[in-house]
């Protein structure tokens, strides 16, 4: 399997805070890589660096062999790297379909409007929002908005999808459903890099896991290896339930 995304020695500092330190990892084609770590470990910052929301101080990001380090967000999106936001950011006064058409229009394939509408419909159907096509995004429930966020990213037909806590705030039934959707996406050939706090979910979904602590990589490996790593358990000691959560999974 080839490396789709290669991150090398990535660093970012905000004032005195080292948000990300010399981080390296890679996402292989057709796999799901989970990015976990305690609160404030710098996970979302990593996404922001990959996406071009911030430019890294040091390091390199290569995507399908091309150097995309520090490119503007819209250029990164054109390369086929789509993303969902931890806090949903729908275009509130647009319909569900229009939201997704934006994703399809300006994403990797840069589709013309008519064809973008088709791609958007497919994405909406995949996440199960097809009966709300013409509803305004602002009228959706939180779970609906989360699914919209995902559909909008998917409509771009990305090569790699970055998911930032898509399960947070959902109830167990919705979580079950979302996990199913994520598997379907992976099976359709889209690779995924995901941040998630729900250990059970990420352990079962991910092919590999990278553990981040204070901006640096603490461990990497198969889910089972990582779960057994004493360093990882140590890092989570501030979170007493964590060890139990790991055992459950």
């Amino acid at each position, binding site marked *: 399997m080839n490396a789709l995304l290669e991150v090398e020695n990535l660093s970012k500092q905000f004032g005195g805070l080292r948000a990300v330190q010399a981080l390296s990892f890679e996402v292989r084609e057709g796999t799901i890589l989970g990015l976990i770590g305690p609160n404030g470990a710098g996970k979302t910052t990593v996404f922001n660096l990959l996406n071009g929301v911030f430019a890294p101080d040091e390091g390199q990001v290569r995507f399908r062999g091309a150097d995309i380090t520090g490119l503007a967000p*819209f250029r990164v*999106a054109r390369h086929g790297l789509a993303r969902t936001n931890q806090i949903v950011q729908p275009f509130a*006064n647009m319909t569900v379909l229009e939201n997704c058409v934006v994703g399809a229009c300006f994403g990797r394939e840069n589709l*013309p*409007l008519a064809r*973008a509408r088709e791609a958007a419909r497919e994405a909406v159907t995949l996440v199960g929002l097809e009966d709300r096509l013409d509803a305004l995004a602002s009228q959706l429930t939180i779970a609906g908005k989360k699914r919209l966020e995902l559909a909008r990213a998917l409509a771009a037909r990305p090569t790699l999808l970055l998911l930032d806590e898509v399960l947070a705030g959902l109830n167990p039934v919705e979580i079950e459903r979302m996990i199913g959707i994520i598997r379907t996406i992976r099976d359709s050939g889209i690779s995924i890099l995901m941040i998630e706090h729900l250990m059970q979910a990420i352990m079962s979904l991910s092919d590999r896991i990278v553990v981040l602590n204070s901006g640096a990589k603490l461990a990497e490996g198969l889910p089972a290896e990582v779960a057994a790593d004493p360093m990882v358990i140590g890092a989570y000691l501030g979170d007493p339930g964590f060890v139990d959560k790991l055992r459950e999974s």
Partner: protein
Amino acid sequence: MILRRPFFWIIAAIVAAFAIAPAIGDNIELRESLVLAAVYITLASNINMILGYAGYVNFGSIVFFGLGGYFSVWLMSAHAWPLAAALVAGGVAVSALALVFGLGILRLRGVYFALSTIGVNEGVMAFVANFGPWGGSTGIYLSPALFQPLGGPAKALWVIYYLLVGIMGLSLVLSYAVKRSKFGLGLLAIGQNEDAAALLGVPTPRYKAIVYSLSAFLPAIAGGLYFFKSAYIQPPDAFDLQLSTETIVVAMLGGQGTVAGPALGAFLYEELRGWLLTSPTFSHFQLVVAGVLLLAIVLFAPGGLMGLLYRLWPRLRSFLE
């Protein structure tokens, strides 16, 4: 493609009404009132592309109108260009200038951008007032002889009127075509949430600069026509911040972000203004009325008239854009 949409024919009907109404019985009074309405509709439709679609408040949009006026009037008086060439050159020059300004100030967002647009208008006005070739603070006066090629003053006024109505129609078509296009979709996304739009791949810096420049083109030509009609141009008239802000009032009144709204708002506002100016009690209170109107819209009906109409008859959405 666009010809098959019912809304296109609504635009065509509006333009036809403007063209025919004053011609019946040679009604010059009606024509003069419609001239202003056409100017308001042109300005409001164009500012709507940046205000209503992309969500950027441009307090100084009148700078395009004024500069267009100056370019055209100057080309005609100092270089004896024919009207049509002077108008097009004015439009192109102002659009190009707007692109340059836009690339600078569109790096700003929200209130910072809004404040800078006032700065641009006032800065340009202060510059023009000191600019020798354009007559400084006295401005430029056109010789009546310039009306001769159009068949004398009386006939020229009709020609100017029809050209203005044409520019108004083009503004509506442009506003509509942009809204239905991929470019327009990108602008609407920027207006709703610029960061999210950029993450999805909308080339935000380029789109904003293009729409800023595009929204300058037709107002600049309208400015050329308007000041050709007046036969003189001076800085305070050309860069009248009050007209600039009335344009925003008009767009908000009709419903920012819709195509028909700004036109509807412009027409009603102009009629209201005309009526207020002739009424002895209210003639001093034009600004007060505009202010109260705007405040009421912002606080209680941010969607404007179109928002209210959509709420009353949701089916309107399907053909009235």
